[in-house]
């Protein structure tokens, strides 16, 4: 096919992204460096000098990291198991694991309220079995927020890992085993490094998703604030779009830094990519 025609196919998508995503993002970023008509870094300095903002940032990072680690720990074995099952069982399990993505975050969060509340399933069970005397405070804590986020993002990591694991050449594992490697060594030396790309992509999706999630932290979280709810407060109720833009840019930068770090880590684990 004519090469020019191929370029033309790219044009509508490219144009759409440029006009409706790239330009607005650039304008948002540019606006954060201008105050009263002067170029300045004051917006950023103000935030980073502020202990309160740093605390919100740390809370958000902590929640995002814990959510990502939990998703990896829960998603990896699940994806591995699904990838090794027969076609029919696989499609059933896959449908089951992506099911949370098909319901809205609001509905999911309300289900967790019923499960985690003082009169919820978990506390009722623990109290009735005599394991505890008084219901635990789970709902409206960072723990509830993380539970909601893990539920939300687990499907993402399972899908990405599954894609990688299904293309894995298990002949390599068999070869290692025939050469005397234990199944753990074969996993450590062959399966794991080859699935790192999936882990990285899944990890990035979960991390960035948790970093920017709004509904779940707003509904399940308590008094502790995360960066997205702070951004919402500035933009929607205080009408301070300058501060909201600065926060948005900080979120974008964190995302890029994390993507960079995770890629560097992936290269170290699996240099041939």
């Amino acid at each position: 096919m004519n090469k020019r025609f191929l370029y033309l196919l790219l044009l509508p998508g490219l144009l759409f992204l440029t006009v409706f995503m790239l330009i607005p993002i650039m304008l948002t970023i540019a606006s954060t460096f201008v105050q009263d008509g002067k170029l300045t870094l004051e917006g950023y300095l103000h935030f980073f000098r502020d202990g309160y903002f740093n605390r919100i940032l740390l809370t958000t990072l902590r929640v995002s990291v814990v959510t990502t680690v939990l998703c990896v720990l829960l998603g990896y074995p699940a994806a591995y198991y699904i990838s090794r099952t027969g076609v029919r069982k696989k499609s059933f399990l896959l449908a089951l694991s992506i099911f949370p993505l098909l319901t809205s975050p609001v509905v999911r969060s309300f289900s967790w309220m019923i499960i985690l509340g003082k009169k919820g399933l978990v506390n009722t069970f623990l109290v009735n079995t005599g394991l505890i005397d008084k219901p635990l405070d789970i709902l409206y804590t960072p723990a509830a927020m993380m539970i909601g986020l893990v539920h939300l993002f687990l499907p993402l990591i399972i899908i990405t890992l599954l894609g990688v694991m299904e293309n894995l050449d298990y002949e390599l594992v068999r070869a290692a085993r025939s050469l005397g490697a234990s199944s753990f060594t074969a996993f450590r030396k062959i399966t794991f490094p080859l699935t790192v790309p999936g882990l990285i992509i899944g990890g990035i999706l979960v991390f960035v998703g948790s970093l920017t999630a709004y509904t779940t932290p707003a509904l399940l979280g308590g008094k502790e604030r995360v960066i997205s709810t702070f951004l919402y407060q500035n933009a929607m109720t205080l009408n301070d779009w300058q501060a909201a833009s600065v926060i948005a840019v900080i979120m974008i930068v964190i995302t890029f830094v994390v993507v960079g770090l995770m890629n560097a880590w992936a290269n170290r684990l699996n240099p041939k990519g």
Partner: protein
Amino acid sequence: MRKWMKMGLAVTLTSLLAACGTAGNNNGATNNGAASEGAETSAPAELVISTWGFSEDFFKEAVYAPFEKEHNVKIVVEIGYNAERLNKIRQGSSDVDVIYLSDYYAQQGIDEKLFDTVDRANIPNIGKLYDIAKAPLGEEYGPAYTVGRLGIAYNPALVKGEVNSWADMWTAFDNNLTLPAITATAGPMIVDAASVVAGSTEFNEDQSFAKQKELDASVVKYYSQTSEYVNMFGQEEIAGGPIMEMYFKDLQAAVPDAKFVAPTEGAYAVMNTINVVKGSNNKKLAEEFINWQLSKEVQEKSAKAKVDSPVNTEVVLTEDEAKGVTYGADVIGKLRKLDMSFVNQHISEWTDRWNREIGG
């Protein structure tokens, strides 16, 4: 090749921008058309109303439909929270004619010159309102069409003793209280109540924040929407907290023994206002709509349906009908009213302080 691509990009961009321009012009033409048609028949095609989503069916049937019929107009409703809807107006991309807002947000709109002044001669029903509702944000702007009160609701089984005053929030609740977030409509009322409980006759910011900080340990969550409160109350996550009387029926549905009290220091007046947005092509009609919303007929219907408390003094309710409704000169006369202009001057500073010292 590069030259060819550049040309392609330029052509596409130009046509895209041209398309946007045409679309804009078309809209303009439609609006103008509507306006001129309106001038001829005194019946513009559309009246856009920005409001909350609650009791939508009631409003459609009892408020919008009769007005549409009488004025041969189609009412288009835009729904959202106070802040969202006000922001749309701020962005300048909205074609809203009439906006319902709580007094706290309406004051922001006035301060930012987003609303048109109203001609009170076109809204004669204002004369029939309780004084508090006539001009809560100044004579030039829209009236309050309902006055609710913020008191304390609680589950008697979960608190220590009776709750009668704002001060009881500090003693009767044990890690099971909810308070409105500072940015919620009722947030500034708690700032004021804390100052009162601290013993100041004049508002004292430092004393208020110190007092609020004492209460923080007892708060499970600061709510931004009443639905959150109702949900927490039903699940017994909380024993209670400040809430508008109109929502008490939802609490009672979940906990039949629930109680609502107007604190002895005075419940707070929560006023919902109705204003004309600057740039409306249908100002006269918008004022007529405001007049209709204040009429005895609408006010009585919404009170009986327990949708909004009436401010029209001609509305008469039986004892049963008045249950859960802020009704009567006596009740309304005792309400504490915040100076919204003062609140708006300080809200950024209070929010920042609240974030750092209390609810952050």
